[in-house]
């Protein structure tokens, strides 16, 4: 793959061309995400159907011009439900990850930067939460707050907190001991300046990659909650919910499983592709 005749060129000159290499995966990923965001913000732009409206045509209508993806068990337009469901699913994926990451990293950072006593206490608490099965946590959260997208979101977020917290603590430890943090201290910067400028951003770095996977996991976890009957409240459309409902009717209409399943997978793939790209950029690597 290497052309031996090429002369060494300055990296500064070589970089831009490589940075803008044509990458169909990335473009598709970004395109898909843009579509999702549009669906989440203004679903009405993408479909004229009401996701809650029971169609006169009846249930399990196969795809047609009127219903591009057919209708579900209650005769509602599947495409409209997919489009309107994007919001809950995105909220679930992004929201749960955002909460998990934020709370988890605050807790983890406090543990990683505080004295040994505080750290020990926090870490034991994290152990306690980790030792309780995620599902039970979710059940308790849902039982306390009731079902619904937002509550399922909290359940999923809550379960993810200890993982992020552990990661961040470990990361904070590494960064705190790193030479560049010491170098910044040696320059005479304030403790908080050092933490803000160097410790935090570097401790967060691996989080980008992890969080992109986390978004997918969160959507999946939300769907799993729905599967166990703990997810979104009907009739609100949500992909996980549609998926678990679709399973009941899989022999009547397999599209009811395939479509939301595909949407979830594509979302995760898109988020990951884009996320990896962002991560590479944030590391200043040539893409």
């Amino acid at each position, binding site marked *: 793959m290497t052309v031996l005749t090429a002369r060494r060129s300055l990296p500064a000159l070589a970089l831009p061309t490589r940075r803008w290499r044509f990458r169909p995966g990335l473009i598709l990923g970004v395109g898909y995400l843009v579509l999702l965001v549009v669906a989440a913000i203004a679903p009405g732009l993408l479909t004229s159907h009401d996701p809650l409206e029971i169609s006169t045509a009846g249930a399990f209508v196969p795809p047609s011009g009127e219903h591009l993806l057919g209708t579900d068990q209650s005769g509602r337009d599947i495409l409209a439900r997919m489009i309107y469901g994007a919001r809950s699913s995105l909220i679930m994926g992004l929201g749960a990850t955002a909460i998990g990451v934020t709370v988890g990293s605050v807790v983890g950072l406090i543990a990683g930067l505080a004295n040994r006593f505080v750290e020990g206490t926090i870490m*034991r*608490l994290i*152990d*306690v*939460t*980790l*030792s*309780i*099965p*995620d*599902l*039970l946590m979710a*059940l*308790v959260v849902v*039982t*306390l707050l009731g079902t619904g997208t937002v509550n399922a979101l909290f359940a999923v977020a809550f379960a993810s907190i200890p*993982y992020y917290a552990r990661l961040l603590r470990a990361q904070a430890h590494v960064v705190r001991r790193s030479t560049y943090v010491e170098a910044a201290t040696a320059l005479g910067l304030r403790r908080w300046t050092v933490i803000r400028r160097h410790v935090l951003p570097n401790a967060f770095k691996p989080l980008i990659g992890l969080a992109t*996977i986390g978004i*997918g*996991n969160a*959507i*999946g*976890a939300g*769907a*799993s909650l729905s*599967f*166990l009957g703990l997810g979104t409240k009907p009739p609100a459309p949500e992909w*996980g919910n549609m*998926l*678990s409902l679709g*399973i009941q009717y*899989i022999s009547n209409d397999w599209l009811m*499983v395939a479509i939301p*399943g595909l949407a*979830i*997978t594509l979302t*995760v*793939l898109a988020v*990951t592709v884009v996320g990896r790209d962002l991560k590479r950029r944030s590391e200043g690597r040539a893409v």
Partner: protein
Amino acid sequence: MGIWKRIGTRLVAGIGVLWGAATLSFIALHVTAGDAALATVAGDGANPTQAVLDRVRTDYGLDLPLYQQYLNYLGRLLTGDLGESYQQRVSVAKAIGEQLGETVQLALSAAVVAVVLAVGVAILTARRRPWIRSTASGIELVLTSFPTFVLGLVLLIIFSFKAGWFPVSGNEGFAALVLPTFTLALPIAATLSQVLRTELEEVLEQPFILTARSRGMREASVRLGHALRHALIQIVTMSGFVIGGLLGGAVITETLFVRRGVGQLMLTATTTKDIPLVLGVVIFAATVYVVVNLIVDIVYGLIDPRVVTS
């Protein structure tokens, strides 16, 4: 000497974790709405007499103030008594014990499959041609992101409903274990192999690998003999994640494949407010967590001599 002391402190911390988990769950279960006695005898379709309800309430001390119930519970716990399941009316230890075998069987086989798959795939794809790597990591991504139940269903449809290779459900026999095992193992394997590949690729860059190659070692031996052990350290480190994944995934896998198991037990126990049973499962899970962490600590020292001696 060092290792015993470490195990000692870990055990003390572990007991603390158990206590914390039990207490937290106790509180959580009691603050959630729902009358446990009613849930026990007066569920859907039941029409019990008030006498039955009152009997259950006094039998289980549900009429006592909460702190009293908590102290009683802790007291019994200290004597190793986990109490009696409200729903099943047998000791919690027995109720869990009955389900344990299948869960352990499933969890172990899934763990083995996950690790073997992850190691295998990572070893085969690390530092290979780009298309091999991106194919592998693409598949892994899909697997990690797919809800377990969908994956299980897809496997069921393909291998059971359509091909008829494996029984659709049940606990009996090896064949019935295959699909649930893979359902549980694949997402874990996918995550593990992503981590492992990164790790392996880093290890394969190391000078000592080049040295091994320079001795005339074949590629397979280099990967298996040298690189793998380093990657194993990662697996050991991620064991917490694996355990979590196994326990969490087990509920759904068990539901889907209609296997008995602790996951199912917990699910029903929680929705019906079978408090002693839920707490029993929590204590069980927490014990597993603590023990696994302890083992990890020891294994870590065995795999990586630097941990103990440096």
